[in-house]
């Protein structure tokens, strides 16, 4: 399972397209803002029925999000012992150095800038999937 946190519907569509193009077969859960992402991860609100042990294999996290900012979401994930081992990839338009530094400071596992060119974007998503879903060994997730 992959959790994709993205508020922009166009970007969401393009990302899903790129994931599809890369032949990623994993279930993809989408959260449209920071609050929703936290509810999902910590099994609260609409996702209260979900079991927390069902961890996403990777979380693709945009930074600029409504309600709860991406960096805060990151902080909550990495600050909780139950979720801190979930790999988080910041996938954002921002090339700002501050964002890069702050994200790594909070414990992100990767920081990827979305290129303007869809070709390049598609390549990036493909490589991310390849790495985090196939190559990377994570401590205790579903197989």
């Amino acid at each position: 399972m992959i959790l994709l946190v993205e508020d922009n519907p166009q970007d969401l569509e393009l990302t899903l397209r790129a994931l599809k193009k890369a032949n990623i077969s994993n279930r993809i859960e989408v959260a449209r803002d920071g609050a929703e992402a936290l509810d999902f991860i910590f099994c609260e609100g609409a996702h209260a029925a979900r079991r927390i042990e069902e961890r996403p294999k990777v979380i693709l996290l945009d930074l600029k999000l409504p309600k709860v900012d991406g960096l805060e979401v990151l902080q909550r994930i990495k600050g909780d012992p139950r979720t801190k081992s979930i790999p988080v990839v910041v996938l954002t338009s921002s090339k700002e150095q501050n964002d890069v530094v702050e994200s790594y400071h909070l414990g992100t596992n990767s920081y990827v800038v979305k290129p303007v060119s869809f070709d390049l974007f598609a390549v990036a998503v493909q490589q991310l999937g390849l790495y985090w879903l196939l190559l990377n060994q994570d401590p205790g997730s579903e197989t």
Partner: protein
Amino acid sequence: MIQASAADSLASGLGRRFAVFLSLYLVLSGPLFATNDNPNLHTMADTAVSLTTGILAWLLWDLSSRAGPPSMRWLAVALAVGAFWELIHALAAIEPIELATPVALRSMLRPSTWPIPAHILPLGIVAALALSRDAKGAFKSFGAALVLLSLGVLLLFRGVPSYAAQPWHGITRPFLLLVPFLWMAAAVSSWRQRKAASLMAPLSLTAALLVIAHSAMLFSRAPHDSMAMVAHLGKASGVLFLMSYVIQARGAGIREREAANATALQESQERLSGIVNSAMDAIITIDSTQRIVLFNVAAERMFGCAAAEAIGQPLDQFIPARFRGGHSRHVEQFGAAGVTTRSMGLLGALSGLRRDGQEFPIEASISQVEVAGQKLYTVILRDVTESKRAAAALLESQARLSGIVNSAMDAIITIGSDQRIVLFNVSAERMFRCTASEVIGQPLDEFIPNRFRATHSRHVEHFGAAGVTSRSMGLLGALSGLRRDGEEFPIEASISQVEVGGAKLFTVILRDITERKRAEEEIQTLNAELEQRVRQRTAELEAANKDLEAFSYSVSHDLRSPLRTVDGFSQAVLEDFSPHLPEEGRRQLQTIREGAQRMGALIDDLLAFSRLGRQSLNKRAGVDMDGLVHEVLKDLLPEGPGRKIEVHIAELAPGNGDGALLKQVWTNLLSNALKYTRRRDVAVIDVGSVAENSETIYFVRDNGTGFDMRYAKKLFGVFHRLHRAEDFEGTGVGLAIVQRIVQRHGGRVWAEAAVDQGATFRFTLQRGAKS
């Protein structure tokens, strides 16, 4: 000492003298026995005794008035009374007087007056010697007592017969038996006092002689017989002996005095001569004919002339010709006036004339003295060349000081220890708005604001006691002055003290710092304003920076998303609907994608450019520029065959700056060089550096298309391009980035080129560790 030794010699000659008198007396006494009646001799002897005794009395009186013990005076009185009665006795023997005397008295006068001196004289001597110890000056009473006693003796002997009817053991005049004993007493008492006065020894001898004489008298049988004459001769010998001694003693005294006087005179003359010759002043004595009689050592020095040459010469030779007449008159008038000293030169400056003709100023005084009827004038001269010069120098120095004091910009005020003003210069007049004449003698307090007066007073006293000579005042805070019109103003002051003739003077130098204070305040206000403005500007800049950050953040984030949408969906259309699209449609969609991607590149470059402005410099010295250039070229140069590119890199001086940013500079410049030489068969690129002054100039030269220098100014502007995009791709940000990095390093960047002639880009960096 001299007198003592004279007395000794007299004493030693006394025995011999007495022996002479005694033997003369004895020898002369022998013939007296030839005749038994010598009335004339009797009269002569009486006269001699009375005269001699009188003279002796006078001599002793005279002697005692000058020196000697008081007993001399008593003796003189006793001798005088004795002499008087001897005289009466002698006069009674003279025939006319005897005849003129009443017959009743005649029998008494001659025989009865004789015992009076015989008793009174030794009695007087014994009394005088006894009295001499304590009585003080009751001479008249003593004389009167002796006279009364004499009258008593006269009355006693009036009825007594001169000769006894019956001689007793040969003694014919037993009534006079007391007299030898009286003389014996006199001899003994004077002998006992022989140490007290030199006269006592001869007096004692005389008394002893008179004991013999009066003993002989006891055996006389008639007034003029041999025995009486022996007695008279003895009396005369005795008093003459005494007189001879006294006369000689007087003579010795006089000689001693004269000798002493002569010595004293000589000493005094030597002393005077010493003074005269050691005097600093020239001393010249002239006589009434104005010829020099004395010329001291100082005079020799002053006039350059030896005393031996000057003495006897007229004084005129030492007086400048034009003063000679005046001087002569002066001396004459002085002589006539009869005063003894007077300062000369009252009529103006005097001058002396040295032997060598040099004239010099003098100060002189003159005195006169009459010696042996001749007037001598003594002139005392002082060469005042030096003191005149010193006085002139002093005047000049005073004038100079006064000039300084009055031309000083600062106020100068001197006060005495009573804090009253003694000096007030022109600047002080200006500063306090009053004149010096108004304030001299006034207390300084007038110019000190009330609340500072006590403090100031203490301050000055402390300063005086501390004894330092100058000190800056106002260490305890701001000082203030008070103008006459009541205006207070800030001052800066220093104080110094000097002791003049035992009185302390304090000089205060004051500066009105109103203007300075005002200027200082103005500067402070301006500084505060400036700081305020800087703070405001900084805040504005910070706000602008924040805005820019927010702007660039949103550009980075929000502008790129829609572009990706445009590109991504154009791609999606191409992928999903390609078979349904005509060729032209696919081309147009491709163009849309290119536009979107180009805009993405522009945004990326713009963000990079804007970041440069905010990014802090990480400067280091000695950045390896050679290494940077090689690194950059390795990334840029296409591998394998293709273009022919020659790159010549001269050894590059190390640079001072941020290595990463300098790498960006080289990247942009070298990529430009490669880009614009694309159409050359062989691209030639030169890289080098030149040291110039404190800078290093780095350059990149190519043989590419170059550009028109008319547009050189636009070259470094953001998005400014001199070539069409279809000729050479690019966003127009590269050189702008180069310029910004170089400028942030404190350097300059410029380009030289011509169309189709290639271009050279140069930038400078500061050398050395600084900047």
